[in-house]
């Protein structure tokens, strides 16, 4: 993911510098001095061909990079270590771990926390029970839509410990700004401990009054 961002950003900066320079250069060098008309040329076929072909090549290369990165990001492992079902609702999220009865739901005042293990594959199954929401963890550079009637599945393979904030990224009503959550990555051992703790207290989501 970072590779995609890095390449595109540097390519973008380079293009801005070059094309921006080409825009500014005539403004500095060919300002009007006197009444004589400048040479009235209208075309230069070699240049027109070059300025078509080079961007085309750049775009093809960028596509290849983009395709490879996306394929890697969207790859679904055959057997994930952990599965979390995520349900978006107005205005918070519910996380449940199938195979256990662990269920965590939040409120706009207090977003829920999802705990997942480090260096293992967690499968997220995402859906909504009302309007469209969008499940976004900025630290993972990733978001996916929660749409009623659809299940969106994706894998995370976190390589950093820590607590990462998440937000809703699709306007879903008046408390959209407060539809936050947290993803906490812990060691596999800590994860097992957390699951055991959670089994004893789980909260099903309550529909907040709209």
């Amino acid at each position: 993911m970072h590779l995609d961002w890095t390449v595109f950003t540097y390519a973008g900066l380079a293009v801005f510098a070059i094309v921006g320079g080409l825009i500014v250069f005539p403004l500095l060098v060919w300002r009007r001095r006197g009444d004589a008309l400048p040479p009235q040329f209208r075309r230069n076929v070699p240049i027109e061909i070059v300025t078509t072909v080079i961007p085309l090549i750049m775009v093809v290369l960028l596509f290849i990079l983009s395709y490879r990165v996306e394929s890697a990001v969207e790859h679904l492992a055959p057997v994930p270590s952990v599965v979390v079902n995520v349900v978006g609702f107005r205005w918070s999220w519910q996380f449940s771990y199938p195979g256990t009865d662990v269920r965590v739901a939040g409120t706009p005042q207090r977003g829920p926390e999802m705990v997942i293990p480090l260096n293992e594959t967690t499968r997220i199954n995402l859906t909504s029970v009302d309007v469209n929401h969008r499940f976004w963890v900025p630290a993972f550079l990733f978001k996916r839509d929660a749409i009623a009637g659809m299940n969106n599945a994706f894998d995370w393979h976190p390589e950093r410990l820590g607590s990462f904030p998440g937000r809703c990224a699709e306007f879903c009503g008046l408390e959209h700004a407060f539809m936050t959550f947290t993803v906490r990555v812990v060691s596999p051992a800590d994860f097992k401990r957390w699951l055991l703790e959670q089994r004893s207290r789980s909260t099903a989501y309550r529909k907040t009054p709209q």
Partner: protein
Amino acid sequence: MSVIAAPTPAVPSLARRGVLSWITTTDHKRIGILYMTTAIGFFFVAGMMAMLMRAQLAQPNQSIITAHQYAQLFTLHGTVMIFFFVVPFALGLANFLIPLQIGAPDMAFPRLNAFTYWIFLIGALTVMSGAAVNGGAADTGWFAYAPLSGIKISSGLGQDLWIIGLLMASISSILTSINFLTTVFIYRAPGMTMWRIPIFTWEMVATSLLVLMAFPSLAADLSMLLIDRHLGGHFFDPAAGGSPVLYQHLFWFFGHPEVYIMILPYFGVVTEVICTFSRKPVFGYTGMVLSAFAIAGLSMGVWAHHMFTTGAVSDPFFAAVSLLIAVPTGIKFFNWIGTMWRGSITFQTPMLFAIGFLLNFLDGGITGVMVASPPIDFHAKDSYFLVSHFHYVIGGGSLFAIFAAMFFWFPKVFGVKLNEVWGKVCFVCEFVGFNLTFFPMYFLGVMGMPRRVYTYPNLPGWGLLNSLATLGAAIMAVGVILFIVNVIASVKRHTPVPDDPWGGFTLEWATSSPPPPNNFDWLPPIRSERPVFDLHHPELAKTGR
């Protein structure tokens, strides 16, 4: 053969006064003026909405306005700016210019033309009237995704008024395009072959084609939404076999071409301005025309890049076509650079705004290429990064071209020249203000701030960047006020304007400022894409094509 220009007395075509003469007019010049002034009026309204939003967001955790008010503001800001300012201004400018640029006396269907203006105005007022009804105006965003915009969750009248107003705007735009295409096909003056029409008119041909292809999808989508809301439909209701994704497909099949409808006319404006103030013909005329149609065509095939995160579309197809659109856009940029290259450049206000357009649109275009890559979009989508991207292309692009167009053609339309010094100050305010407002937003987006939030927590850097953005917006507002003052003062001063104050190339500069009712008392011979240039420089007149 050369024609000596006889001085044409300035026959004021706005001589017939009275409100009734404006209500019954079918003169394309008057209709163009109606469209443009109405559009600018809506710009002020939507701009003030933006100022309110920026005031609310200047600091974290503020409650200057409520979440509900904020939702109405961002919905109406987007809807009004897009449907009632940027597009109508272009259509109004084209209304004024196309017959003049091709040497025609009026549009092909003058009364249809008038109808399209009035239905657009009524549509705009219908959308805005939502603010006065119980429950307030539409508050589901300018794309009004189902199920949020469905009757269960958005039961208020405001949403229905929004839908009806947009249906009226659709009717207006579709009929206008038919008018434009017919006029350009049939009413070109002798010698004005298609390959000699000005680039602005070509861009309007491509825009009109896009409107015909895109707006029906919006009309269908909105009608389906109405049926779901009031007639027991379930198009977008998954519980009954429908799909929210269907709404998005139909919306974006319109929505993406819509953004090209918002920029192609302004590519044309910028081309005319750069040529005039570089005193050179457009570089690569053929390339400009072909790239306009390449952009229009490709833009019909990229719609689901707005749906990369739905998991319901083939991301690679749309990524590929979206990245591909950068190529014809690049061709245009290189052609603009080629036009300025070895030119003789002066920096009057229209040219300053055109240069601002080039730099801003370059920025927005580059970030557009970035979000065309799905992995980048997975982070940037619906964050402030995206908000910045699209404001750079529409605000930094279209809006700057609108200013360029106003300063460039104001003398032709009204017979009044706007003050140059205040124009330049206005440009500086707009350029500095615009970039100060939107550049920080790239960072806010990357840091994780989503769009459409009425407030945000006090995270490091978020408050400062937002404050900078609000400051920039205030500077832009100052520039707009200066523009208004400029208009009023210049109209009061009213120094007469010659036919051709800038040294223009195209036919509108061959007639008086403002033009007589029948547009032309005489026409120069048309043997190239620059008939007025050829008139003034017969020794350089191009022959052939």
